[in-house]
C-alpha cells in the first residue's frame, strides 16, 4: 500500500493495508496498491510494467503478484497481473473488476471503498486457490552446472579478476531496512514520475516500495487499464 498522492485518510489506509495482508495470508498472493498524483504525460502501460519490473511483487517462480495503480489527476487505473496469475485473473476479468467494481465507486468519490472492493474482488477470484507455476523456457540445471565447472576452470586460467569484472551484472537487489531497495543504473528513467532509486527527479517520490518485500515475481503485461 503506497499512497503517494495522499488520497486516503489514515484510517482507510490502515484498513486497506489490513485487507491486503489478510488476502496475502489467505491465498499467498501478494497484492500492492499504489496511488500516484499524475502520470506526467507518461504512457500508463509503459509506466506500469516498469514499476512491476522494479518492484517484482509476488513470489519468485510463481510470479503471482498483482499491482493496482491509480493516477488521480489522470483519472486512470491499471491492474497489472503477474505471469502466474494470467490464467486466473485474465485481462477480461481485470477489465471487469475495473469497470464494474472500481470505477463506479471512484466516480462517486468513494476512493477507499473502490479500492477495497477491487482488492476483495481480486482475492475472491483467487479463492484460496494457489497459483500454479507457469512453465517457461529455462536453462536446465545440468547445463548450468556444466557452465559453472567450465567457468571455474576458465577463471583459474585467466585469473579471477579478468573474467569476473567483465561479467554482466544486470540487476542487484539488497535488502534494506525498509524493504527492498533496488539500486538503479543511470541508463534507466530520465523523465516522468520517479519510481525509486537513483536521483530523485519528479515531484512524485517513491521510496523503496516501503511496506512490502517483493520476492521476484515477474510480469508480462497481463491485466487491464481503465478510467473513471
Amino acid at each position, binding site marked *: 500500500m503506497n499512497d503517494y498522492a495522499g488520497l486516503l485518510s489514515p484510517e482507510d489506509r490502515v484498513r486497506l493495508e489490513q485487507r491486503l495482508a489478510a488476502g496475502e495470508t489467505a491465498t499467498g498472493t501478494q497484492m500492492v496498491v499504489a496511488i500516484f498524483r499524475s502520470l506526467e504525460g507518461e*504512457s500508463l*502501460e*509503459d509506466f506500469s*510494467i516498469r514499476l512491476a519490473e522494479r518492484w517484482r511483487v509476488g513470489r519468485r517462480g510463481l510470479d503471482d503478484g498483482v499491482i493496482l495503480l491509480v493516477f488521480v489527476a489522470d483519472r486512470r487505473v491499471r491492474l497489472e497481473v503477474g505471469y502466474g496469475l494470467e490464467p486466473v485473473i*485474465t*485481462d*477480461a476479468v*481485470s*477489465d*471487469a473488476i475495473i469497470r464494474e467494481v472500481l470505477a463506479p465507486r471512484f466516480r462517486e468519490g468513494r476512493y477507499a471503498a473502490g479500492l477495497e472492493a477491487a482488492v476483495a474482488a481480486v482475492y475472491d477470484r483467487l479463492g484460496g486457490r494457489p497459483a500454479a507455476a507457469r512453465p517457461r*523456457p529455462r*536453462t536446465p540445471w545440468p547445463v548450468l552446472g556444466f*557452465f559453472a565447472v*567450465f*567457468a571455474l*576452470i*576458465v*577463471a*583459474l*586460467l*585467466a*585469473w579471477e579478476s*579478468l*573474467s569476473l569484472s*567483465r*561479467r*554482466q551484472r*544486470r540487476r542487484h537487489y539488497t535488502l534494506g531496512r525498509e524493504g527492498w531497495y533496488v539500486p538503479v543504473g543511470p541508463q534507466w528513467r530520465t523523465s516522468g514520475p520517479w519510481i525509486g532509486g537513483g536521483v530523485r527527479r519528479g515531484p512524485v517520490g517513491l521510496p523503496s516500495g516501503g511496506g512490502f518485500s517483493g520476492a521476484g515475481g515477474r510480469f*508480462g*503485461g*497481463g*491485466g*487491464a*487499464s481503465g478510467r473513471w
Partner: protein
Amino acid sequence: MRAHVAVLVVLGILVAVLGGWAVSVNNQLVRLEQDVNEKWAQVQNVYQRRADLIPNLVETVRGFAAQERTVLEEVTRARAAATGVQLTPEALTDPKALERFQAVQRGLDGALSRLLVVVERYPELRSNQNFLTLQSQLEGTENRIAIERRRYNEAVRDYNTRLRLFPGSLVAAVAGFRPKAFFETSPDAATPPRVKF
C-alpha cells in the same frame, strides 16, 4: 638451454591465458544469444496470441455487422499473411527478415484498427459481452506485444554491445557470432497501436 625452457613456459602461460579469455568471451556471447532467442520466442508467442484472437473477433463482429464484408475480409487476409511469416532465431541476424516480419504485422495492425473504427457504428455490438471480453483481450495482447518487443530489443542491445566491444569482437568474429536486428519503431508506430473506443 635454460633460456629455452623459460621461453616455452612463458609461451605456454600466454596461450593458456588467451585461450581461457577467448572461451570466457565466447560463453558470454552464447549466453546473451540464448537470451535474445528466448525473448524472440516470447515476441512470436504474443503475436500468435493476437492472431488466435482474430477468428473469434471476426465472427463476433460479423454477427452484428455482416454487411462490413470488405473490412472483415481484409482482417482475415492480414491475419493469414501475418501468421505466414515466422522467423527462426537464426534469421534474426538478417535485418530484412525482421523487416518482413514487422511489415506483415503492421498490415494486421492497420486492418484491425480499421475494423475497430467500423465497430464504432454498431452500439449493440459495442455493448455485447462477448465483444467486450475480446476487446479487453486484444488490448492486453497489444500491451504484451509492446512489452515483449522492448525486452527483445534490450536483449539484442546487450548481445550486440558485447559482440562489438574490442578485443572481444575478435573472438566473436572468429567464432562466427553476428549482430542481431532490432525492432524498429516506424513513425506511425511510435506509440504502440492502441485499441480505443
